């Protein structure tokens, strides 16, 4: 009996864990985007102590706390959410120094030189983009701080260069389309 109960308990535990770990990953479909200068993912989750100081210090509020829906291993760690803001490490209030890296007590986020900052890159869904659908909008092009990351087709439609893009999320935040045409992904990210 004891063994049976134990096995049942173990089974339930496994199912619960899977629910909070595998399903969110499947649901989300892509890895989280991390603050600039973050360690490689396994190391990051191990080193981060979930103190959320980086979440509190971020001047744009782009850093958010990962929830259970983001996965068990990721719970409480910082993630970049362009629905809330954009990363100003390249241009703006953190141009001198990344505040998140400054306050991180364990070195899960390291302060790297601007040239080495790449959080990921933005992808466009032209079906949702106002400009690609014929309307006058180039908000992404307007707000992009890196010349060449976004270029114009026919002087009216944005084209994204994932190699030059640093993944700051300004375009994704500012995109006025509903639902948004731009998604910030971790593709091409530079981790420490």
């Amino acid at each position: 009996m004891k063994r049976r109960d134990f096995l049942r308990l173990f089974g339930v535990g496994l199912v619960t864990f899977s629910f909070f770990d595998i399903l969110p990953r499947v649901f989300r479909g892509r890895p989280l985007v991390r603050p600039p200068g973050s360690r490689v993912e396994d190391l990051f989750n191990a080193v981060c102590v979930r103190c959320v100081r980086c979440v509190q210090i971020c001047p744009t509020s782009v850093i958010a706390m990962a929830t259970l829906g983001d996965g068990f291993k990721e719970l409480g760690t910082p993630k970049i959410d362009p629905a809330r803001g954009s990363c100003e490490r390249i241009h703006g209030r953190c141009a001198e120094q990344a505040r998140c890296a400054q306050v991180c007590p364990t070195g899960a986020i390291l302060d790297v030189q601007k040239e080495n900052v790449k959080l990921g890159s933005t992808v466009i869904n032209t079906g949702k983009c106002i400009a690609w659908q014929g309307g006058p909008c180039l908000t992404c092009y307007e707000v992009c701080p890196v010349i060449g990351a976004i270029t114009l087709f026919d002087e009216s439609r944005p084209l994204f260069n994932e190699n030059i893009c640093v993944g700051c999320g300004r375009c994704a935040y500012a995109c006025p389309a509903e639902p948004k045409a731009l998604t910030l992904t971790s593709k091409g990210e530079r981790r420490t």
Partner: protein
Amino acid sequence: MDQGQPEEEKSKRSTVSRRTFLKLLIAGAAAVGGIMSLDFLYPKPTNPELRTVTPTTAKVTASTFSTTPSSKGASVVVVRGSASVKPAVLVERALESLGGVEKIVPSGASIFVKPNVGFYDKEAATDPRVVVAVVNCLKRALPSQIVAGESSVRGNDTEYALQVTGMRSIVGETGVEVRDLRKDQAVNVSIPKGKAMSSVNVFKTVRDSSFIVDMPRLKRHSATTITISLKNMMGTVPDSEKGRFHQVNLNQCIADLNSVLRPSLVIIDATNVMTKRGPTGGTMVELNTVIASLDPVAADIVAAEELFKAEGVTDPAASAGRVEHIQMAAELGVGVADRSKIEIVEVKIS
């Protein structure tokens, strides 16, 4: 193996333990879920736009502005100075040529000054020295108050932009408050002549003023060809409205907005203009010019022409005439876009 135990007891024990276990599991999950949904446990976002801006729903028509658009014609003053001429001198001459600030601004007016501080870049913003010069002139008209304000491009922090462009400190020296409009309340204003919008949410400070002084920097713009006085008025609406403009029809919405928040006085900073690309990252050309008018549409037409001339465009007047939002504003009666009906007063200061 508990072979000695009677059957009932065995099944009873396992039934109870399973049920209890499931109850505990559900209770535990509910407790965790409940705790995780408690808002106060999470750090609050510092971005003011994340707190929903709920406009008051009382329908109020915009306060009347002292100048009414004339379909007869408009007058635009273009003051050109040599490199050594200071912005204050350009501004003084411009206002003089328009009839003098005491004539243009009714005494006791509640003035709102709208500089362009959309980005963190100094080159993209109105030169603070030009704003100071205008403010000092406006004071002579004995207004009841002067407030300057802006809400930056979506995603940019207005406070930081005001700081880093020097707008806050330099204009602050005149004693005039430069407000981050994002901290202001938003109110709903109906647009009787609106073609794309029947109403719009604007910041209360602007709606409550009785005289708007629109002070853009003359620049190119990726989406609207140029950004001058009409486009500059977009800084008076909250982010959600800026987004809506793009969703509905950017050019028509700019025209609609200006039909209710019509600038009474336009002073365009053309001291250094942004050519080839804008609203940031363009090539700056020094013109040391100030363009002023009581008609924002006419001012934009003349200024656009100046910009295209500086770029070396073959037919600057034709290019200026093709700017959509200017034509749409003219159609709504915001001002005169017909070049033949615009009187240009040229002043040269060496």
